[in-house]
C-alpha cells in the first residue's frame, strides 16, 4: 500500500524495514536484583552484588518486570506464553560483568502481536497493521566511559541488569514514514500501558533498524542492522540513508554485506561496525540458575484487567462518542498525558456548564489543539509544564460559554493566565474584561460611531453592505472589545435599518 520508492538509475526499488526496539521496563528495581534503576545517578551507585557478578551471586526474577512485559504484550494483542524460559547469551565485554546476558532466545514471554499505524498525520484514516514477532525480557549491560582517563576506560554498572523488553517487529514497513510512525505508535502504547517511559533521549527506548532493498515484488534482499538508534527522526534518517546507500551499491554491481552498522546523528549517515564473519558465537543455552517462568491464568487476567483504555480505542471513542474530528482525536490521543489532560478538561467543563461531556468536547478540543497548544508552543513549553491546569482551562471555557467574555477576550485572558498563573475569573474581574450587555451603553457607542462616520453610513445605505463589519469593529474597538457581539450586531442593524 505504501508507494514509497527509491528511484535508482536502473529503475525503482522498494525498501523493507524491521525494527527491534529495546524498551526499558519502568520498575523501581532491576530484572534480577533489588538494585535501583533511576536515571542519571552517580556512576556505580545502583549496583548490587548480583549486578557486579560477584562470585556465588544468583539472579532472582523481579515479578513486576514480568508483569509489565505481559501487560505490554496484551496491549498489542499478542499471544502470552504461559511457559517461557531465560537463556544465557555468552560474550565477553567489560560492560557485561557476568560474561553473559540473561535473555530469552528459545522461548520468549510474548509471541505474535500487531501495532496499527497511521503513517501520514494528514491522512488520519489511512492505517496499516505492522506485525510484531515477539517480545522477550532481558538484562541491559553497563556503560563504558572512555573520557575519564588518557589510557584507560572506566565502567559504570548502574544500567547493568536493568530490565529491557525487546520488541521485535516483522519486516512489514516499507518507508521511512512507516518506520517512524511504528516507533512513535509503539512509544505511545508503552506510555499508555506505563511499562516504559519512552524517553529515547535518556536511552529508555532505542531501536535496531533492519533495512534491505529489493525490486518491487521480488524476494527480500540482504539486510543490514543499524544499532541503537535513539529517536524517531534518526530512525527515519537511518532508513532513508541506508536504503539509498544499498541501492547505490547494488546498481554499481556490488553486493550488500550482512553487517552491523552505526548511525551518526551529526552526518545522518551509517557506517560499518562489524560484518557477519566477525559476529560472536553467543553459545545460547538455558540459564541453569533460573527455573522456567510459568504464568498462571489468573496472573495474565490480572494483567489484562489492569490495562487502561488504549490509544486506538480512545481515538475511536473520541470520534464517535465525543464527535471530535479525526485529526483532533488523533492529536489528543497521541500521548497518554494529552488524553488525560483533555479528559480532565471536558469533565470539569461539563460540570461547570451543566452539560454532558459530548456537548462540551468539540469546543474544548478546538480550544486545546489550536489555542493552548499554540500558546504553549510559543513559550517553548508542553502540557506537562503548562502553567494552565485543565481546571483553569475549563473555567475559561465556561466564561465564554455563559457569555461573560467573548472569544477574542478569551484569547487575551489565556495570555494573562500563562503569564501570571492566575485563574481566568480573577483576571477578567481585575482587568474589567467582562462583556457588556448593557443596551444603553452599546447604543451610545453605536450612535457615536455612526455619527463620526456619516459618509460611510451613506455608502452603506446606498448598498455597500460590506461596511457592516466596519461599524461592528469600530464599536467593539470603542468598547475595548467588551461589547456583547450579538447585541452590538442587533443595535447596528436596528439603527441602520
Amino acid at each position, binding site marked *: 500500500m505504501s508507494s514509497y520508492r527509491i528511484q535508482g538509475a536502473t529503475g525503482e526499488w522498494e525498501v523493507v524495514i524491521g525494527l527491534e526496539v529495546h524498551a526499558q521496563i519502568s520498575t523501581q528495581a532491576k530484572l534480577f536484583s533489588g538494585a535501583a534503576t533511576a536515571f542519571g545517578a552517580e556512576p556505580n551507585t545502583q549496583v548490587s552484588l548480583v549486578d557486579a557478578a560477584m*562470585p556465588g*551471586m544468583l539472579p532472582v*526474577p523481579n515479578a513486576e518486570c514480568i508483569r509489565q512485559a505481559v501487560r505490554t504484550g496484551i496491549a498489542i494483542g499478542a499471544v502470552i506464553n504461559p511457559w517461557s524460559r531465560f537463556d544465557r547469551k*555468552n560474550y*565477553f565485554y*567489560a560492560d557485561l560483568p557476568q*560474561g553473559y546476558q540473561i535473555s530469552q532466545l528459545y522461548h520468549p514471554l510474548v509471541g505474535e502481536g500487531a501495532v496499527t499505524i497511521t503513517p501520514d498525520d494528514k491522512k488520519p484514516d489511512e492505517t496499516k497493521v505492522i506485525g510484531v514477532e515477539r517480545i522477550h525480557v532481558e538484562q541491559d549491560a553497563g556503560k563504558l566511559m572512555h573520557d575519564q582517563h588518557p589510557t584507560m576506560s572506566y565502567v559504570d554498572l548502574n544500567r547493568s541488569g536493568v530490565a529491557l523488553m525487546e520488541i521485535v517487529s516483522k519486516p512489514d514497513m516499507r518507508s521511512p514514514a512507516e518506520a517512524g510512525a511504528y516507533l512513535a505508535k509503539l512509544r505511545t502504547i508503552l506510555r499508555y500501558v506505563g511499562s516504559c517511559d519512552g524517553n529515547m533521549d535518556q536511552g529508555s527506548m532505542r531501536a535496531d533498524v533492519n533495512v534491505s532493498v529489493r525490486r518491487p515484488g521480488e524476494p527480500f534482499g540482504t539486510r543490514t542492522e543499524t544499532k541503537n538508534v535513539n529517536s524517531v527522526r534518526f530512525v527515519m534518517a537511518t532508513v532513508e540513508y541506508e536504503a539509498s546507500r544499498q541501492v547505490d551499491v547494488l546498481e554499481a554491481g556490488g553486493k550488500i554485506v550482512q553487517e552491523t552498522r552505526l548511525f551518526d546523528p551529526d552526518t545522518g549517515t551509517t557506517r560499518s561496525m562489524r560484518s557477519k564473519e566477525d559476529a560472536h558465537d553467543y553459545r545460547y543455552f538455558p540459564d541453569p540458575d533460573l527455573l522456567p517462568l510459568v504464568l498462571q491464568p489468573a496472573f495474565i487476567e490480572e494483567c489484562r484487567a489492569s490495562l487502561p483504555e488504549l490509544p486506538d480505542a480512545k481515538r475511536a471513542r473520541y470520534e464517535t462518542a465525543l464527535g471530535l474530528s479525526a485529526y483532533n482525536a488523533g492529536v489528543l490521543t497521541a500521548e497518554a498525558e494529552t488524553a488525560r489532560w483533555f479528559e480532565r478538561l471536558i469533565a470539569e467543563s461539563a460540570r461547570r456548564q451543566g452539560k454532558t461531556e459530548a456537548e462540551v468536547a468539540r469546543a474544548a478540543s478546538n480550544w486545546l489543539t489550536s489555542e493552548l497548544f499554540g500558546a504553549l508552543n510559543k513559550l517553548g513549553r508542553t502540557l506537562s509544564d503548562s502553567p494552565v491546569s485543565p481546571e483553569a482551562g475549563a473555567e475559561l471555557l465556561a466564561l465564554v460559554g455563559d457569555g461573560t467574555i467573548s472569544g477574542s477576550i478569551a484569547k487575551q485572558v489565556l495570555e494573562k493566565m500563562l503569564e501570571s498563573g492566575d485563574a481566568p475569573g480573577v483576571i477578567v474581574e481585575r482587568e474589567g474584561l467582562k462583556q457588556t450587555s448593557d443596551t444603553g451603553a452599546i447604543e451610545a457607542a453605536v450612535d457615536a460611531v455612526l455619527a463620526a462616520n456619516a459618509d460611510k453610513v451613506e455608502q452603506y445605505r446606498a448598498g455597500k453592505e460590506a461596511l457592516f463589519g466596519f461599524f461592528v469593529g469600530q464599536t467593539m474597538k470603542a468598547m475595548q472589545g467588551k461589547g456583547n457581539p450579538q447585541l452590538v450586531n442587533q443595535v447596528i442593524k436596528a439603527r441602520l435599518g
Partner: protein
Amino acid sequence: MSELTDLGIAAIRDGVAKGDFTATEVAQAFNAAVAEANPALNAFIVTTPDHALAAAQRVDAARAAGQPLGKLAGVPIGMKDLFATKGVQTTAASHILEGFVPPYESTVSQRLWDAGAGMLGKLNLDQFAMGSSNETSAFGNVISPWRAAGDNAGRAPGGSSGGSSAAVAARIAAAATGTDTGGSIRQPAAFTGISGIKPTYGRCSRWGIVAFASSLDQAGPMARDVTDCAIMLEAMAGFDAKDSTSLDLPVPAWSAQLSDDLKGLKVGIPREYRIDGLNADVAKSWDDGIAWLKDAGAQVVDISLPHTRYALPTYYIIAPAEASSNLARYDGVRYGLRDLPEGAGLQDMYAATRAAGFGSEVKRRIMIGTYVLSAGFYDAYYTQAQKVRTLIARDFEEAFRQVDVILTPTAPSAAFVLGQKSDDPLEMYLNDVFSVPASLAGLPAMSVPAGLDRQGLPLGLHLIGRPFDEQGVLNAGLAIERRAAFTARPEKWW
C-alpha cells in the same frame, strides 16, 4: 575422657550443653590440632582460629546467661573454600581469586554460624571444585591422613572436597562443609572413612557458593557419622529466596527421626553398576552392605538403571557447558587477578588474566564447555545430553516405583596414590562413575564407611534416595554404619 578433638558434632554439642567442657576449650583444642597438622596435610588454605574462638565464646556466654543454644553450639567446623565468607579470603582454590575477600557471607555458612558453629578455616579443594583428587588446587594438593599398610606414599583425599574429607578424617575438624556436583562430597568421604550426604538438589541454597555447574551443585555436610550428618544438614538446609532453584519446603527433623530399623524397606541393587573388572574389594564391600541391610530388615531387589553407562559422558557435557559460562565472570575487570601486560587492550587483558589465573583442568573444562555450546555442535552435544539426562532421571523414577533406596559402591576403588591419575583426565573422571547418575537426577545420596580394603584403606557405600527423602538415605546409612562398626582411623603420622 578422650581428647576433645575425638568428638563429633553431637558429642561436642551435648558436652557443651551439659557443661562437661566449654566451647572455648573445644575451639582451642581444634585450633591447636589444625596448627599442628596443616603443614603436613595442607587441608586448609587459610586458618581462622579467631573465628572459631569468637564463636565458642559467644556460645559459652549464651550458656552462662541461660539462653537457648543452637543445633551446632560450640562445634568448630571447616568451611570448604568455595563458600563466600565475609571478611575471609575465598578462592575456590584458584589463583584467579587469590586475595579475594568477599563483603558477604554465603547463605549456608551464615546458617551454620547462626546455629552456633565456629570456623577453623577455609578448606582446600580441587580448583573450582573440578577434580577428584585435590591435585588441581592452586594452593598445593591436600594429602590424605590415610596411608596404605606398609606404604608411606601420599594418598588422594578424594575431590573436590578433599580438604574437608582430610580434616574430618584426621580429627582436626569436628565436621566440614562440602559441595557435590558429580560426587565431590561422596567420593572424598569414601576415600577417608567418613560420612557425607548430598541432599536433594535445591535443599541447600547455592547463594554465595562459587558456582561450578549450577544445575548440579549442591552443598552438604561431611562428618564423622550419619547422626552428625543429619544434625548438620538440618542447620544447612532450608528455603532461600535469593536462590531461584531453592526448594520451598520445610526442613524435616532428620536427626530426631533416625532409625536403623529397615523392616518393610526395599533396597534396589542396580545391575548396571556391577561394571566389568569391578575391584574385588569394592565388590565384597557391596555384598557386605547388602547383607547388613537385609539384617536390618530390608528386602533386597535387583533393579535396572539402563542408561547408567551414558551418565558420565552426559555429565562431562553438561557440567563443563555450565562451567564455561559460570566462569566467564573471572575476567580481571572487577575483582581477583588482573594481568594487564604493557600496552594491552581489553581482549589481551582477558587472555592474559585467564591464562595466568586458571589451572589446566579448569581450562580444559572451559574449552570442552565452550565447544559443546558452540554453533553447529550445540544440538549434537548439549541438547542431546539434556535428553539423556532426562532418561537417566526417568530410570530412577521407574526404579523408585519398586524400591525405596538404592545401594551401590561410592567409588570404583579406594584412595589412589597422588599423581597416579593426574596425567590421565579420563581415568580421573571414572572416579565419579557411581556418583554422577544421582547428581544428574538431583537425588539425595550419601556415602558411609563400609570397611577397609586389603591395603587398609577405607571403602564407602553409596545410598541413593527418592527426591526429598533424605530420611530414607540417612536411615539406610545408619543401618550400615551400625553393622559395619567402622572404627578404623588414620594413624597419626603428621
